[in-house]
């Protein structure tokens, strides 16, 4: 059993790298996935008996390459495929013979996922599948979509990549303007991966594990680190990683011992991860050197202000209000508008926060839970108890997370003790 776990873990670490490498060279994601699937199956059968090879990636690459050769023979495309197969054979040989590592094509893969011809809504799922190796069912769950639907959508996207011969060229072959344009989409997708995994309680990863388990947030952080390695000059990549690390630093503190949700303002800072906070601060500082502010740096700066409570014992709400003001001007998303109202309410009073909330068009917030949770909180502070009850009730009805639902129910229960 133990050996199976190690096999799975090794396989998992190699999957994204191999899939990216093979796809970039072979260009047909479906073939690659099948070949790689076979290779992993062989590994699961062989490794528990033979032990994990010294170079697991080379081992897997060799098998996958053989499958691709078989396939090329059957479909009579060998002549066309020969140069690629030879190059792969050379890579596999180098990999085996020296300390060399498999060329890391994951950035090329991420940039491909952000290709302008690919539906923006599918970029994140495609990245989850190709770079992280998540299966369609898991991706479907993360986005609350029917597994069969997600699977069909992914198949369609891959068919499109193949039919339209969307380019897989390596990052250094692309010009800077093209990379910058696509990088925005990549950052957005990585942030979406993080957002999807944000709510998972600490410790979920431990029970889940493997390809199907939780830990999406951790994967997003890894992607963020990977990006940094490839685009060291991009301040927004630093900003995004800083933002994710600041949020990750508080994961343990977001739930108490009984699994109850604890909002940021009530969190015990002693449970925050100081190492991650320090790293996030360093990254944010490095980003600021470029003198080019962006939304991720701003969001990271906001989290950095919250983190200061660790040393000062207090939260600078006026600084937060100002940063959110900047964020809303740059990108007036619903989330940013609601958060700005929250910060303004803390800094300058519930009335002013409420005014900002009221300025958001009603049709946009019909089913937006954070809006109603904040409205409940502000009405309560303004002693408008009936409105507070109604808003909290709506927030509870819109929560998909049980621990958040319980938290809001407690707020509501406190309210009924008041006149």
């Amino acid at each position, binding site marked *: 059993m133990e050996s199976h776990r190690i096999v799975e873990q090794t396989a998992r670490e190699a999957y994204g790298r191999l899939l990216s490498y093979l796809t970039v060279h072979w260009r047909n994601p479906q073939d690659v996935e099948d070949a790689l699937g076979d290779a992993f199956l062989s590994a699961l059968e062989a490794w528990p008996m033979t032990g994990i090879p010294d170079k697991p990636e080379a081992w897997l690459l060799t098998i996958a390459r053989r499958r691709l050769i078989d396939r090329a023979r059957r479909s009579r495309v060998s002549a066309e495929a020969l140069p690629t197969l030879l190059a792969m054979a050379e890579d596999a040989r180098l990999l085996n013979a020296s300390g060399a590592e498999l060329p890391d094509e994951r950035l090329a893969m991420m940039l491909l996922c952000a290709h302008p011809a690919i539906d923006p809504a599918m970029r994140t799922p495609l990245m989850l599948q190709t770079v992280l190796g998540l299966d369609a069912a898991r991706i479907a769950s993360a986005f609350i979509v029917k597994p069969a*639907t997600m699977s069909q959508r992914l198949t369609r996207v891959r068919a499109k990549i193949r039919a339209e011969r969307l380019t897989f060229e390596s990052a250094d072959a692309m010009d800077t303007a093209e990379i910058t344009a696509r990088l925005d989409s990549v950052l957005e997708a990585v942030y979406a991966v993080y957002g999807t995994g944000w709510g998972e309680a600490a410790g979920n990863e431990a029970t889940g594990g493997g390809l199907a388990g939780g830990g999406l947030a951790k994967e997003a952080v890894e992607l963020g680190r990977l990006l940094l390695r490839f685009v060291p000059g991009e301040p927004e990549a630093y900003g995004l990683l800083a933002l994710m690390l600041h949020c990750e630093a508080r994961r343990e503190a977001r739930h108490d011992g009984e699994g109850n949700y604890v909002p940021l303002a009530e969190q015990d800072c002693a449970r925050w991860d100081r190492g991650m906070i320090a790293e996030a601060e360093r990254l944010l500082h490095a980003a600021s050197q470029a003198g080019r502010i962006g939304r991720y740096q701003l969001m990271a700066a906001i989290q950095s202000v919250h983190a200061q409570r660790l040393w000062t014992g207090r939260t600078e709400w006026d600084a937060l209000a100002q940063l959110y003001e900047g964020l809303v001007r740059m990108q007036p998303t619903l989330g940013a508008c609601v958060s700005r109202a929250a910060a303004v309410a803390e800094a300058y009073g519930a009335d002013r926060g409420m005014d900002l909330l009221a300025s958001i068009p009603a049709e946009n917030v019909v089913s937006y839970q954070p809006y109603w949770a904040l409205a409940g909180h502000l009405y309560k502070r303004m002693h408008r108890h009936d409105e507070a009850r109604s808003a909290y009730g*709506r927030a*509870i*009805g819109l929560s*998909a997370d049980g621990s958040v*639902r319980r938290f809001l*129910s407690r707020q509501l229960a406190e309210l009924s003790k008041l006149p």
Partner: protein
Amino acid sequence: MNYTLMFYESQEDFAARTDPERQEAYLAGWTHYVHALREAGIVVFGSGLYAPETAATVKRRGGDMVVQDGPFPETKEQLGGIFVIDVPDMDAALEWAARGPVDTVEVRQNIPALK
């Protein structure tokens, strides 16, 4: 497009409906959810069902009708109520299902009414 959300409740859920100690908390979960659904303006129809013990099932066996008590207890969870909602697509319907106060919700699209 109309979708039916079918809420499956466990034995414990059904018991909580009438247990004085748990009733209030249990019903509150539903009240808030129904409130949110109604405020969103998507409800076509909704109704809770009495507990499965009160049910009877009619089944044709060969040429004979057989009536028996309760639904078939194949699963631990039983249908406890339904909502028909009008939303643009399956994804939106699933999102609403995920907010429900019970652990299992089946979602299916309704066949449009015959003209």
